[in-house]
């Protein structure tokens, strides 16, 4: 320690002699290189436009920084390293440093202490890391690797180097999944933004981390964030299997049954109960993120049912109720708010598909009418003249709705909507006779009170020969005027209200 300090003290004196004797300087430099060989310093005096560990005539700024071991010592004792004992020196150019960093520009010109002296002390950043930062300020290139990623990101954040942070973010996106897994395990939460970046990257590769051989290594926070996403490219039943694997490795629930058979003391029983309760809460939280209604009935019976003692009963009930419902009955409006009832999106879907699903809802104006809503998402993606909804079942009949987004022969200037009673050919025509009263509505998505309702069509006869009825709803130019609100986020919502549907005897 003392010897190294002597070397640092001698060096400035030698540099002052450069102008007098070139030969002397050379000899001394060689001698100095031998002395500092452990730092692997390189003589860069010929490169005036570079930051350097050795001073040359062009340098007008000196950074005093702690070395790595000084930081380690300082962390153990106090939060500060005494600046008089800083041992790392980097020589630089004020102009270059100020050019790329607004922070340093202000630091060197604001009239405070640093702007009046040649030396700047930075107490909590190691000399090696800061050298790379200076190279970034000089060259716009930041040397990020697995070893220094965390330090680089933190220092760029501290000195508000947004470009540097972006380079770190881009580096994280290039990390291999195995390395990413190691970063997650070693993350100590020092920087929440950095942790979020790791998790974001994990979510982008969720099929790897949810693999049944690896899932047990995830932290619970990471797992919860992953399961929350819509874009996991795995079958729901496989996600369930991986979750079970994680639960079995990270909780005591699966081994609690064997524990109960063992004789334990009273104290041990008390601790075990507490741990078990915590695990139950965690497991319950995790299972709420599984979308059980998306699992097939057979898989529910053969794979899920054996673990029913772990799964909250309301989730199983919800799933069985959903699976037992006829497929043609429209989903209820409230069900849309439940993410478990919505399948996870398929990742490779590049072409937009217009909406076909029909949803039932409670009509606020009529207590006895049956109402469905048809939100046509990706309205502009409709390629055909006529867009048809999925089949849905009401009043014992199967129905469809038609929409003409560009008008049709009968109503060329209007957005026309039709209601069709789907015919079943094997049945006789008289069974198909229905006296129906219905009307359409068009939702104004900016202001619900401006929704348009169109005159009802009383006593419309649907039969085998005439099974489609409808009319024009709104002028096309009004529909496509986004400021009015009938089309919002490329979505047009049609409502159908059926007030009566009476079967007549032929």
């Amino acid at each position: 320690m003392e010897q190294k300090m002597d070397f640092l003290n001698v060096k400035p004196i030698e540099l002052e002699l450069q102008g007098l004797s070139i030969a002397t300087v050379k000899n001394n430099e060689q001698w100095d290189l031998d002395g500092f060989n452990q730092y692997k310093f390189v003589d860069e005096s010929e490169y005036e436009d570079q930051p350097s560990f050795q001073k040359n005539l062009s340098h007008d700024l000196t950074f005093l920084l702690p070395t790595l071991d000084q930081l380690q010592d300082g962390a153990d004792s106090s939060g500060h390293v005494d600046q008089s004992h800083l041992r790392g020196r980097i020589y630089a150019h004020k102009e270059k440093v100020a050019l790329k960093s607004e922070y340093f520009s202000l630091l060197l010109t604001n009239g405070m202490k640093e702007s009046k002296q040649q030396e700047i002390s930075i107490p909590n950043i190691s000399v090696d890391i800061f050298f790379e930062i200076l190279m970034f300020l000089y060259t716009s290139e930041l040397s990020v690797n697995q070893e220094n990623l965390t330090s680089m990101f933190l220092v760029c954040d501290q000195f508000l180097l947004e470009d540097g942070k972006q380079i770190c973010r881009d580096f994280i996106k290039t990390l291999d999944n195995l390395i990413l897994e190691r970063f997650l395990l070693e993350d100590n939460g020092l920087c929440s933004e950095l942790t979020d970046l790791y998790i974001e990257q994990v979510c982008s590769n969720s099929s790897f981390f949810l693999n049944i051989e690896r899932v047990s290594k995830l932290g619970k926070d990471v797992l919860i964030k992953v399961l929350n996403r819509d874009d996991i490219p795995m079958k729901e039943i496989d996600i369930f299997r991986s979750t079970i694997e994680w639960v079995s490795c990270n909780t005591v629930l699966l081994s609690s049954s064997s524990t109960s058979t063992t004789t334990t003391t009273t104290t041990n029983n008390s601790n075990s109960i507490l741990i078990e309760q915590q695990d139950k809460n965690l497991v319950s939280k995790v299972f709420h993120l599984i979308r059980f209604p998306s699992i097939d009935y057979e898989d529910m019976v053969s794979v899920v049912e054996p673990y029913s003692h772990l799964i909250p009963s309301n989730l199983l009930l919800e799933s069985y109720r959903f699976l037992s419902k006829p497929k043609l009955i429209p989903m209820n409006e409230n069900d849309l708010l439940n993410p478990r009832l919505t399948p996870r999106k398929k990742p490779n879907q590049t072409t937009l598909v217009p909406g076909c699903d029909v949803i039932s809802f409670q009509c606020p104006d009529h207590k006895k009418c049956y109402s469905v809503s048809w939100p046509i998402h990706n309205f502009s993606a409709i390629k055909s003249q006529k867009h048809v909804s999925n089949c849905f079942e009401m009043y014992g009949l199967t129905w469809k709705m038609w929409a003409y987004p560009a008008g049709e022969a009968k109503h060329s200037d209007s957005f026309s909507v039709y209601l069709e009673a789907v015919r079943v050919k094997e049945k006789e025509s008289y069974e198909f006779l229905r006296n129906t009263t219905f009307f359409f509505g068009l939702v104004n998505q900016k202001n619900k009170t401006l929704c348009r309702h169109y005159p009802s069509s009383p006593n419309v006869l649907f039969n085998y020969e005439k099974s489609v009825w409808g009319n024009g709803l709104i002028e096309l130019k009004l529909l496509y005027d986004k400021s009015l609100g009938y089309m919002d986020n490329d979505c047009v919502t049609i409502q159908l209200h059926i007030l009566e549907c009476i079967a007549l005897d032929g």
Partner: protein
Amino acid sequence: MMNGLGRQDIDFNTIWKNIADQVYKILTGSQNVSAMFLYEDVYKLCIAQPQPYCEPLYENIKKFFEQHVDQILLIILDTKSDTISEYLKQWKLFFSGCELCNKVIFRYLNLNWINKKILDKKFGHPPDVYEIQILGLMIWKERLFFKIKDRVLKCVEILIQKDRDGELVQHQFISQFMESLIKLDSVDKDRTLYLIEYEASYLENTRQFYTRESVAFIASSGISSYMKKAETRIDEEEQRSQKYLNSSSHDKMRRLLHSILIEKHKELLQSECINYLKDEKLDEIYNMYKLLSRIEGGLAPVLETVQKYIQHVGIDAIKSIPDRNNPDPKIYVETLLKIYLQFSSIIKKSFNNDVSFITVLDLACHKIFNQNHITRNTTKSPELLAKYCDMLLKKGNKQHEEIELEEKLGQIIVLFKYVDDKDVFQKFYSKMLSRRLINGTSVSDDIEKFMITGLKQACGFEYTSKFQRMFNDITLSAETNEEFKNHLIKNSLSIGKIDFSILVLTSGSWSLHSQTSSFIVPQELTLCISAFQQYYSTQHQGRKLNWLHHLCKAEAKSFFAKKSYDFQVTNFQLGILLIFNTQESVSLEEITKFTNLNENELSRTLQSLIEAKILISKKKDQNSINNNNNNNNNNNNNGEGNNSLVDSANNMQPSSSSSSTQEYTVNSAYSNKRSKVKVSSSLQKETPLQNEETYKGIDEDRKLYLQASIVRIMKARKTMNHVSLIQEVIEHSRLRFQPNIPMIKKCIEQLIEKEYITRAEGESDRYLYAA
């Protein structure tokens, strides 16, 4: 371990105490604070885990600023005198300290917490979190400035008053205070401090000060001195505004000054205009012009006054010209020119060559030139102007330098623009130019072309196209004569001892009087004429030459007296003299037989020769005696001499008559001091009859022009009523002359007779285009 940036237990209170101590030093002007260490502390608080300390830090900063500002307020209030100085000193320290805190110390807090908080606020809700600098300024405004506002504003007001009174004042105090108000306004949308507290008060004080000063100054020193004073004060306040007012207020200040110092006294200023003009006080006029030109509409009465004054001076000057009915062109034109130059100079010096005043001068000169008492109901001005041009352009008694001539002619072109009846000028100028070119009496071709170029620029190419063709004819004639001589030499032809040259003039381009009498060319000239005629017809087939003998000149050498004389005579005179080569005495009948001149022309020509004493008129019995003597003496009367045909436009009415019984003989006793004698010819003189003839020609040209114009208009419109047609005809002809309506009506009637236009059936005031 993260390279020394490991998780550390944060003691918020300890770190905050350090931050507070350092920020206090910054706010009190200390320069020995380490920004890096302080920034590090703030950074650690902002990224502390598990919960960052951003909000406690912000609240502590806020409280700190409040306490600090309260302390500053006490310091300022404790200052008994010089409040503004202490206020500005404290403001400067606080503001620069806030700036450093905002940009450096708390930069991380601003970017990562405060800005996000502001963005998270719902739209329309007032923010409760501010950037550090804005926070500091708001606290200063609420807790300090509003409490001592009246006191500080009063101090500034007193300083400004002293500055206006000429006392020595610390200018930077006022401007720094103004800047501080603008900075405090930047945290508020209303921006009331500068506009309401400072600017309004400043402008009101200015208004009161100068209202009192201007009234008192006019009462004590008069309007002339006041104009200088006002200009000085406006300049002073302009300088003061640059220092004491924001740039957004400069226009308001300027308008206020103009209102007080000029607008309120503009009637007084405007009424002095006529006095300054009469006394030719150019400096006062300039001062008045500078002031009034600053306000909108300030110069309008002055323009009117100047125009009336110029007209008045001009009309009076012309009234003093003698011989109203037949004034001297030189005196007339130079009087007009003097008026123009006089007021042009005044406008240049005193009215800054203002376009409005140049227009006023044009209007006034236009009236003077066309409606003075000499030109009343006549077109005398263009006629006199043309005659004056002839004086300048002709070789004569006075020899001007070429540059001087060009200057004078340039001035004449300026006057020419004011003439209404430009066709009259054209007619007279064309006639005189013809005479100068044919007689070779131009001062210089270059000067002539200079004049024509000026007229072209004033009126366009068409106006001067005839003049240009006249010059072309002269040039081509010189070439033709040269070629003719070469032709004679080449073909060994002889035309005798006569030196012969010809001018070929384009028909229609020259203002020439027609030949008034038939004329038999003398035998000696017949050979020349026929030779040229033959030559010219081979060069230009289809062209016809028409000889104008009344415009020709000759130089004849005589030997009938004791010594030889060279006589310069017209062709008519030459024809008579050549008879005496073969006869001693001739009777009137014989002369008529030889020359075929009519009675009027013959009498005029003989009279001119008798007056020149070349010929003697005697009774018949005396002639026989003389004839005998002459025959015995063998006195030879050779007619040899140089003959030069030069056109002349002079025509002369016969002034005497001779008896048919007279006999004529040469005067052998003729003697003259000079050997070259120019025989006086009354053809050279202009007569009132010819003048009248010129005006008739002008009228005829005008009628033709009007008829052509009417036909063009009717052809385009097909149908038109009487009033509209007359209006449009006047518009068309305005550039050349001012037509009178009876002439237009007469032309319309003539065109109806010629069946170019017809009256619409049933409508007496409507015309249709026919044909």
